[in-house]
């Protein structure tokens, strides 16, 4: 974990910077610039007045008379406030339940001995391999049977348990010295008191890493909410954006599409720019999401 934490800012000079000749570095710089072009276009197009016409839409030079009209239009046409609220509810709801499930399960695997531990561990491991996206068909029918079709709860439910989170917490809890728990035991602390006052506070870095991974991935989820949600007012940002794009594409309103896209990705981009190091180390920790 320490190794990973230092990755973003202080990568050691394992390759001494000499392994990639100057040409490789130059190519990387060039590609990094190319990588930014879609973002650059998004920013420039968002601020370009529609009166400039379609023929200048591709200009990467910003307009001299920037306007906020596109943002206003997108905000009004697309009902982005509603989509943002829905996505926030989904991400928060999933995360809160996950915190409970992964803490409890992580503790059981880290500190308790019980019959069938290995078997149950493998059952958890299976979820990592089974790629939830592929199970959308049976899960959609289950959600419908539970009466949760077209509800935000239905969107959240398949993610309430997380094998990845459980393994992460297990690892964090195992690193905590047992002496601390023994002391609490002598003081007569119950199981839940020990978890709450010793294990949870000392595992905050792991919780925050998990929160970053969980929120990022569910903020970006598309296919599953698309299948579960039917009512327009329950759409999350991604589904809202795809519908919005389809409508605006017909009218060639590329400035509003750019503005809408900006609104969908802005929260995560801002969070990333502030907490870069944390994001990076969480992503490396995650491996398979």
């Amino acid at each position, binding site marked *: 974990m320490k190794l990973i934490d230092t990755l973003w800012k202080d990568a050691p000079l394992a390759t001494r910077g000499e392994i990639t000749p100057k040409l490789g570095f130059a190519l990387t710089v060039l590609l990094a610039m190319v990588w930014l072009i879609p*973002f650059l276009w998004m920013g420039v197009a968002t601020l370009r007045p529609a009166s400039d016409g379609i023929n200048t839409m591709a200009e990467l030079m910003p307009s001299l008379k920037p306007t906020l009209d596109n943002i206003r239009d997108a905000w009004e046409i697309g009902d982005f406030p509603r989509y943002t609220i829905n996505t926030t509810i989904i991400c928060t709801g999933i995360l809160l339940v996950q915190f409970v499930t992964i803490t409890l399960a992580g503790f059981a695997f880290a500190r308790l001995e019980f019959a069938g531990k290995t078997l149950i561990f493998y059952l958890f491991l299976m979820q990592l391999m089974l790629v939830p996206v592929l199970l959308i068909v049976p899960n959609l029918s289950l959600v419908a049977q539970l009466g949760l079709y077209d509800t935000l709860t239905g969107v959240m439910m398949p993610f309430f348990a997380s094998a990845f989170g459980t393994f992460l917490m297990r690892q964090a809890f195992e690193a905590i010295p047992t002496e601390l728990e023994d002391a609490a035991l002598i003081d007569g602390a119950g199981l839940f008191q020990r978890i709450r006052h010793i294990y949870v506070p000392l595992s905050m870095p792991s919780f925050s890493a998990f929160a970053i991974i969980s929120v990022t991935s569910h903020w970006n989820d598309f296919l599953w909410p698309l299948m579960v949600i039917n009512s327009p007012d329950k759409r999350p940002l991604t589904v809202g954006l795809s519908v919005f794009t389809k409508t605006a594409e017909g009218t060639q309103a590329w400035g509003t599409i750019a503005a809408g896209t900006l609104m969908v990705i802005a929260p995560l981009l801002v969070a990333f720019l502030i907490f870069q190091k944390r994001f990076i180390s969480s992503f490396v920790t995650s491996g398979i999401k």
Partner: protein
Amino acid sequence: MSLAEPAALPVATSAAPRLNVLKRFMERFKTSLPAYLLLLPSLVFLALFTYGAMGRVLIDALYQRATPKAPVRFVGLDNISAVLADPAFTGAVVNNLIYALGTAVPSIALALLFALALSRTRAVNSALRAALFLPVLIPMVAASALFLFIFLPNVGLLDYYIGRLLPVLPNWLGDPDIALTAIMVITIWKNAGYYMLFFLAGLQAVPEDVMEAAHLDGAGPYMRLRHIILPELKPTLLFVTVIATLNAVTQVDHVFVMTQGGPSNATNLVLFYIYQQAVEHYDIGKASAATLLTLAALMGLTALSFRTMANREGGP
């Protein structure tokens, strides 16, 4: 499970040992009970949405759904053979294989290049890494919205800046011969920065003294890359390959937004086919059969790569 202790005799000669076994089992269960209770919330959801889902896919694939004319009926392997005989499915499989290879290889190669070039600690490298990582954070749907304009015929970004240099302006998303490649470009743009992270992490495991010794022995950059760094990165490479393959099968949001599988099924991928069968054609049997085949293929692949990883000293 280690419940069946060797002490349990094959045939109990009297009632006493059997009672003992039962008693021990009860004791074992009692001491295990707190753990079971802690695991219960997770297991309930896993049972419903993972194991249960697996079972339901298996069952649904064997049945024909009720229609107004006929009730649900058992059809055995009919759904599977129907899917295998469906040119749309086999086409999607072929597309998906091309797509997997065409996205995994370039994005992994680029990720390795990025990691090697940016492994050194410098402010500028930090900024470059951030630039390359940004696409990872945005939803595929948002990336698709941006690339829709990039690929737009005539007025789009690509044609505006580069397309004019070509003798004929291609319709990037409308031409069946080009559309799949266009979709692949987005995927490479979106994932290379993610894989870069793993290579950056992997590079830290390269022993510094070995690198130094090789340097003193006069090994050039290429020699050090070929003989020290790449062998050291092998586990990372394998791991990233698995993720890239999984991504190639599970990322289809851009197909929804940009092409809907078209033109003439040129960009239809397996997961999109499953979606079409389930939601558009309402054929749960066929959708389940396709899911089952895909799951089997993926699990086989994952098992294979895990075995390769296990055979090697220490995975990531």
